[in-house]
């Protein structure tokens, strides 16, 4: 021990500073992380989404019905996107996710309001994500008191006073008790699979490059596709084991409904595991070191968590963020998993998401094959 020498401290400090300025990652961390995080958290994330797509089935064309639709619109929570002609059609829109809300105004509504006879409208919410619908459902409470204020005049004026002229019946579909775990746990399947599979495979090829074993591999008659299949197959097992654990825990610990859609779910899982592995492989063909591979995986996983609808309601995000979100495979996988488990969607409801996942697999595999170098050039 010779005591603290500022000269020696300075020696380390100067060395560190020089190394820091020569590492491009430093600049990425210093600039990109705050900018990206602030943009995401500041603009994109909104835990109380408005302008939710709403389908309506009006069984009578009346002043009152029009006023109610107008009042819903004015609340800013509901955007009417479709007119349903039958309850089945309404149900389908809710199930596929085309509509977050389904409003039914029954045929005898005006008559009942006029008579003061328990008039009702039905609002069905897709409550798979309780936080996405919470604000809108709360806003419905004020509806009966105000919606018909301008219509109930003259002889009907007394109907607008005292007790409300009609009542809003709210059905929280798919998750009636608004249990957050029902939404989060299936979502975690997508996040955990991405996290482990993308990272593990990204490291697997980079490790060969870093340790120098790649040079020997390349000097053998191995073909790129042989390396890729051989390297990825063990991780398919990893992914399947993880899927089994997560679904098992979801069922027995969290009592997440397993209401069906098994075919779509299986297809989705197969596509997603394959795509994630191919993506990891692609990253590893770009990254020069294991550290760089980790960082690149991170840049994929961060938006997957934030913009996929896993943590925050997808429809709460501004349009640009939703477009970004649509480009993230996890987004589509989450819709398949939640749709299958909670809404018992069939293949007919999921084909768009499954198609997106297929495109993901094909594009990423093609890129990985194109990037994989058979030589050290």
């Amino acid at each position, binding site marked *: 021990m010779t005591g603290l020498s500022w000269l020696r401290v300075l020696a380390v400090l100067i060395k560190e500073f020089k190394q820091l300025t020569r590492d491009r990652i430093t600049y990425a961390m210093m600039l990109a992380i705050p900018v990206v995080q602030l943009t995401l958290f500041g603009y994109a994330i909104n835990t109380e989404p408005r302008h939710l797509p709403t389908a309506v089935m009006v069984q009578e064309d009346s002043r009152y019905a029009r006023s109610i639709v107008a009042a819903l619109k004015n609340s800013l929570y509901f955007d009417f996107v479709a007119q349903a002609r039958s309850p089945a059609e309404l149900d389908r829109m809710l199930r596929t996710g085309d509509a977050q809300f389904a409003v039914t105004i029954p045929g005898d509504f005006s008559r009942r309001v006029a008579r003061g006879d328990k008039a009702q409208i039905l609002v069905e919410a897709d409550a798979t994500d309780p936080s996405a619908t919470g604000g809108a459902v709360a806003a419905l409470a004020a509806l009966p008191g105000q919606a018909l204020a301008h219509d109930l005049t003259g002889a009907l004026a007394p109907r607008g006073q005292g007790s409300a002229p009609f009542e809003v019946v709210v059905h929280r579909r798919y998750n009636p008790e608004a249990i957050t775990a029902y939404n989060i746990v299936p979502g975690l399947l997508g996040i955990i699979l991405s996290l482990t599979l993308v990272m593990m495979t990204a490291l697997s090829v980079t490790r060969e490059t870093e340790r120098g*074993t790649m*040079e*020997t591999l*390349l*000097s*053998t008659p191995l073909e790129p596709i042989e390396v890729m299949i051989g390297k990825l197959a063990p991780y398919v097992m990893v992914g399947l084991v993880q899927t089994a654990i997560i679904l098992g825990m979801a069922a027995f610990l969290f009592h997440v409904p397993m209401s069906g859609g098994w075919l779509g779910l299986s297809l989705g899982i197969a596509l997603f595991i394959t795509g994630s592995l191919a993506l990891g492989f692609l990253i590893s063909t770009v990254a020069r070191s294991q550290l760089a591979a980790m960082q690149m995986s991170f840049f994929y996983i961060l938006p997957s968590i934030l913009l996929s609808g896993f943590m925050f309601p997808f429809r709460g995000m501004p349009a640009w963020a939703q477009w970004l979100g649509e480009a993230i495979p996890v987004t589509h996988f989450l819709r398949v998993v939640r749709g299958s488990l909670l809404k018992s969607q069939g293949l007919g409801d999921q084909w768009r998401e499954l198609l997106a996942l297929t495109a993901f697999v094909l594009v990423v595999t093609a890129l990985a094959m194109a990037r994989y170098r058979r*030589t*050290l050039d």
Partner: protein
Amino acid sequence: MTLAIDVHGLNKTFGDKHVVNDVTIQVEQGRICGFLGPNGSGKTTTLRMLCGLLTPDSGSGEALGFDIIAQADEVKRRTGYMTQKFSLYEDLTIAENLQFTARVYGLDRRKDRVDKALERLGLATRRGQLAGTLSGGWKQRLALAAATLHEPKLLLLDEPTAGVDPKARRTFWDEIHALAAEGLTVLVSTHYMDEAERCHEIAYISYGRLIARGTAAEVIAGSGLITFHGEGPNADKLAHELATAPGVETAAAFGAAIHVSGTDRAALEAAVKPYRREPYRWTEVPPTLEDVFIQLMGQSQDNVQ
């Protein structure tokens, strides 16, 4: 005479650096060719182009009768390549590494071949040991066993004995000679002069250019170098003084002795003359390969950029 390697005008550029410049090499089948040159002279790049790991920018040629560019796969199948850095799997055992290699080359009688290789290596009792725990010398011998498991016709070795002790180096070279005796052609890069002297012929490359080639004796004779061997006190100090004298191309101290070399006899004599007195004793000796290489390195353009 069958040529195992016959390449002409190989060129390779990385960025603005011309790493290999018009290199032409021929190696006869069954010969051991030593590949020499300073660091960064393009030896590794040339070896990599020969075994299909790098594609030459221009130039052409054959290895084992196959076009090195169009038929790189055929060359790969028949070539063993041993990298400069140990590049087997440290987290696999000795036997597992060999089994992996055997499978990749699709060899028959896998178990038999692996057992034989282990036997030959003298590692049969340690087959379950992780390759990463081997010492430097053993690692190189294992790498050689892996590179020759598929019975290649051509063996490319990139500084195979760097950092290996003299005894292990000798064992390694004995094995290489045994392989060459079986008809294998070997191209081996090295910095060790004793190894260069064990090669049938040598090729000296510098700044990406092939500068000298032939047997050790031919290269020495071709250099036209004259060497004086001096003995006496403070030989190392003398080396320093003589190095800058006109006519002296290299001057190096070896313990208590000094080697002074140059191509111009008269100038060299003149430089040494002031020191031709007691207590120094001078004799003319044939130049060693090292004298020649140091002279060659001094002549060619410095490649450390």
